[in-house]
């Protein structure tokens, strides 16, 4: 597939991304403004606050909440274009800055987890395909179980075992790398379950293909067959899955960051949810949507470069 086509495709996808973000913003904006609930109340210390009527009115004026909805919508779009996500109701600080401070932790967590999941999956796939019937059964069981583990449960068990019982790893994140181990593992294991199932079946299929037989007929070793041939075929669907995986991981981060007391988007979002801090929720959703869209574009391009066959289609639908 020639570079130009790739670039053209990327351009198209970027256009699509802009559309998606606009849609997400619009959707969330109207959804939030069409449901009952007084933002001004939320701004003034949330439910149970004893804000006076004057205070409420002043806030409404300050935040332009007394404007017609469409005016507010236009204002929001205008702000978005300039990268301004508005101010947090609870913290009174710009949402953009708030998210900026949090996003790195979450991305590091998610990407590390993605890498670990890949390593686990590849290892398991390579081992199980070379192992006999029994080995495959075991691997299959492991994968199924891993994929079925709820993050919070896994996290709890891991803490109980590795922190409380064995005392090997810190139960909450700290500056040291050791604090990252349990959160990353918690996130990675279920994903590894999914990926491994995918890769193993894909590898087994590939190994049955005539081209594998041809390769074997040239004297290729079993290992060679797996690494040079099967693995690349197994990797493709898994790559396409990685876009979805990042979304999955960010979802999981909400739980994991809470359990392991890690700063990050997940906890920011959760807290904003409890405080009904609408701007923050919308901001996080938008940013995550952006990350997701970019990720799918990336995986799409990668898989296309990795696979000259234009037969399989990346992207949604």
């Amino acid at each position, binding site marked *: 597939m020639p570079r130009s086509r790739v670039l053209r495709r990327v351009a198209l996808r970027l256009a699509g991304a802009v559309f998606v973000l606009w849609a*997400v913003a619009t959707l969330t904006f109207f959804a939030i403004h069409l449901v009952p609930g007084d933002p001004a109340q939320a701004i003034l210390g949330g439910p149970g606050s004893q804000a006076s009527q004057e205070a409420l009115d002043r806030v409404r004026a300050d935040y332009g909440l007394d404007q017609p909805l469409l005016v507010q919508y236009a204002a929001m779009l205008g702000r978005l274009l300039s990268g301004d996500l508005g101010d947090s109701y609870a913290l009174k600080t710009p949402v953009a800055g708030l998210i900026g401070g949090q996003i790195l932790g979450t991305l590091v967590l998610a990407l590390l987890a993605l890498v670990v999941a890949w390593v686990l999956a590849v290892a398991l796939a390579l081992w199980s395909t070379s192992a006999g019937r029994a080995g495959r059964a075991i691997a299959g069981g492991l994968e199924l179980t891993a994929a079925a583990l709820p993050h919070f449960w896994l996290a709890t068990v891991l803490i109980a075992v590795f922190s409380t019982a064995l005392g090997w790893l810190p139960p909450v994140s700290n500056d040291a790398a050791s604090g990252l181990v349990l959160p990353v593992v918690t996130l990675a294991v279920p994903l590894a379950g999914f990926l491994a199932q995918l890769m193993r079946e894909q590898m087994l299929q590939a190994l049955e293909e005539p081209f594998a037989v041809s390769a074997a007929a040239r004297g290729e070793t079993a290992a060679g067959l797996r690494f040079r041939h099967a693995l690349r075929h197994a990797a493709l669907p898994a790559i396409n899955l990685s876009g979805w995986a990042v979304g999955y991981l960010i979802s999981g981060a909400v739980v994991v960051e809470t359990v392991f007391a890690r700063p990050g988007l997940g906890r920011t979002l959760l807290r904003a949810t409890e405080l009904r801090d609408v701007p923050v929720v919308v901001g996080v959703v938008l940013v995550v949507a952006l990350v997701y869209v970019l990720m799918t574009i990336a995986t799409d391009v990668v898989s296309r470069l990795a696979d000259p066959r234009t037969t399989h289609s990346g992207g949604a639908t």
Partner: protein
Amino acid sequence: MSDLELSNRAVSGRALPRPPRVGTMLALAFVAYLIVATAWPAVLQPYDPDAIAPRDAFDPPSPAHWFGTDESGRDVYSRVVEGTAASLLIGVSATAIGLALGLLLGALAGLGGRVLDFAVGRVNEVLFAFPGILLALLIIVLWGPGPVTATIAVGLSTAPGYARIIRGELVRVRGSSYVEAARVLGHGRGRVLLRHILPNALAPITVLATLGIGQAVVWASALSYLGLGAQPPAAEWGAMLAAGRTYITTAWWLTVFPGLMIVLTTITTTVLGRVLAARDGAAR
């Protein structure tokens, strides 16, 4: 937010092969158990799940209490059984919502011609851009927490995946040579749609549903854990887990056993989904 690609292959016959017979048997057995637990919980409950006995609080697992007792001295096993209905209900209805919406979108895209297909494709991208829990949290911000919201949230977040798969199936079948053959025989569009396209394209729905329920249960329980789904004292697994987690240092059984049920349920649905997939994979 079940594993798209996997269900996709499960559906498109490139399936993950049929699980070993033993696994299938075990899965079926567990399903039977779940059904009993849902329909006639009393049959399986040695104790009244709501009977308070503060003096017997925090008893570890024993012959008397297989899963131990909780902070109010209630029998954890009986409560786990009691919770089956609630937990499955959430999982099932979430999947139903997701499938219904997925069907709608998928059908529009797969049968509605280029424009609709494009439109739905974009809609799908938008929905995909709210990964799982985020969509859930957003919905919860809007409508407040609770089992219903959680169910809807999980359902919505699974819809685009289903939509994509169903559209793919519809397109595949529409292009199949047996549909062409039917046209050559002189059948009208409507008849071809009803007799060939829909029956074949929608066959995998059972598979999707089965695979989906397990994952739906997991995500719903995650919301319960975050205190945004079902709440204690509701004997819903996620809620039980969340409540039990407080006592993890002193009473591990409060956390471990409900979690185990969730894991087993998910494994079971996956195994059965595979079996079904292998079945109609063979029929293709």
